[in-house]
């Protein structure tokens, strides 16, 4: 009894084998031209690493300012006739509001001690006969108060309360920084889009040269009845390989940059009494980078192949 596989299965096996052969032969061709391949791959890697790095920096800064924002409070400076007990009563009333998350009472003594610590005027402060600082309430807005206008309205409302001399929004500069970061993110995405187009053009130009170099081979394949799909296949694999290897190199560039910047960033953060550990590309973003790079390579190649093959096969 014949154990030969059905013809459709054999054709499917041949199809897979043809793709494997195209992929490996194309890779072999790229390896045999290392300088040219490296130049194309390096151009792709730099074009992808730049926006990736900017996005990572933006992410890390957004994470940092998010922490700051959580710690940023409104400061209510109470009038001179309000003692700590009055301040505590006011704090208790404010805690019942839904637009306020937390209220801390900073006594005159605690305020003076903090001022002595951070101002560097410890010696001069010893000369004061009495503590001039008022009782301060540190008011933390509710988390859902994201908008700057909401914060302003809260500040204005609290400033108008009896016993409150002055209200200050410490979080305003953090909001400004976050707006800048948001602009930076949008700009990075725009830059990334333009560089992605650049990647496709680089790959497309490289494939165009490859087509020219293999013009005779293409014409022979055309003569013996090769379909467009068959002729295009090795060039699409070339585009995919350029993209994938370029993506891997871009990932390596970004990872190296993160590693090199870790120590200086930590030192800078320490000077501001804070901690910052740079977060690089996680698994999913890394795979997305490689996938995007490969896709850009294939698209760039497909466009070039379509245009230039038509030129070689005028009928």
């Amino acid at each position, binding site marked *: 009894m014949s154990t030969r596989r059905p*013809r459709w299965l*054999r*054709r499917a*096996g*041949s*199809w897979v*084998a*043809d793709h494997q052969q195209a992929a490996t032969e194309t890779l072999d061709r790229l390896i045999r031209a290392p300088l040219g391949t490296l130049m194309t791959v390096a151009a792709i890697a730099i074009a992808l690493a730049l926006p990736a790095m900017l996005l990572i920096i933006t992410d890390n800064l957004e994470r940092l300012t998010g922490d700051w924002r959580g710690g940023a409070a409104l400061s209510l400076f109470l009038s001179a006739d309000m003692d700590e007990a009055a301040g505590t009563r006011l704090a208790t009333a404010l805690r019942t509001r839904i637009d306020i998350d937390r209220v801390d009472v900073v006594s005159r003594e605690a305020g003076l001690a903090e001022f002595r610590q951070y101002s560097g005027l410890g010696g001069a402060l010893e000369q004061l006969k009495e503590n001039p600082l008022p009782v301060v309430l540190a008011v933390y807005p509710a988390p859902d108060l994201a908008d700057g206008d909401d914060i302003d309205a809260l500040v204005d409302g609290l400033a108008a309360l009896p016993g409150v001399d002055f209200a200050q929004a410490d979080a305003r500069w953090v909001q400004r920084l976050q707006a800048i970061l948001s602009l930076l993110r949008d700009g990075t995405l725009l830059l990334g889009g333009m560089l992605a187009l650049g990647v496709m053009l680089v790959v497309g130009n490289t494939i165009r040269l490859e087509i020219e170099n293999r013009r*005779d*081979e293409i*014409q*022979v*394949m*055309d*003569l*013996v*009845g*090769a*379909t*467009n799909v*068959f002729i295009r296949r090795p060039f699409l694999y070339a585009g995919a390989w350029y993209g994938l290897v370029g993506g891997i190199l871009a990932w390596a560039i970004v990872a190296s940059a993160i590693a090199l910047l870790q120590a200086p960033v930590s030192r800078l953060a320490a000077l501001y009494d804070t901690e910052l550990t740079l977060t690089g590309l996680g698994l999913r973003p890394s795979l997305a980078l490689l996938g995007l790079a490969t896709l850009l390579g294939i698209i760039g190649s497909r466009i070039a192949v379509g245009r230039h093959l038509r030129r070689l096969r005028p*009928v």
Partner: protein
Amino acid sequence: MIEFEHVTKRYPERGDALRDLSFRLGGGEMAFLTGHSGAGKSTLLKLIGLLERPTRGSVRVGDEDLAALPRRRIPAHRRRIGMVFQDHRLLADRTVFQNVALPLVTAGMPRDETAKRVRAALDQVGLLKFERALPLTLSSGEQQRVGIARAVVGRPEVILADEPTGNLDPELSREIFRLFERFHQLGVSLLIATHDLDLIQSLGHRTLVLKQGRLIADAMPRPVSEKAQGEALAP
């Protein structure tokens, strides 16, 4: 099998390469195509292989009107035709086996079937032992035989040969024509463009003569004894 009806092919820079050409080649028929350089022989073959489209008139191969054939069906049409070229058109960086297999690989034939057919074709042209060789290591005659093997491996309905012995000496030329006779005897239609008038006359097949793009003679085959034919093709 092949039918030309009032075919004209005009090139903008060269003028008419073919003018109002009409002829018919039946299935299993072998014919020579001859004429001076620039007479239109290669153009005629290109029209059959759909490397060009006629400016006017109709070219039919089998039941297909080539002028109306859409682009996506051209590869399938070319696989019905085997083409042999004066300059062989082999891929230098692929082995003899891979060159001969090309029409079958492009058609998606399973690998085991491909291997069987390639070896059968190479055996027919006497080059089975060279299947792993690269084309440039072979002689000109051997390379042409590889080209013929590639042309017949797909079991085409018709073989077109454009000056297949143009670069070969008389002995090798006779060797090549012996192969063509063998395939003709298997029922394949052949249309061979050649300047070799001696062989044309000695083989006695139908001969189409072109002059400045016009068909000026269509000499039907005259009886030639097998002995005479054998002598003409003897090494």
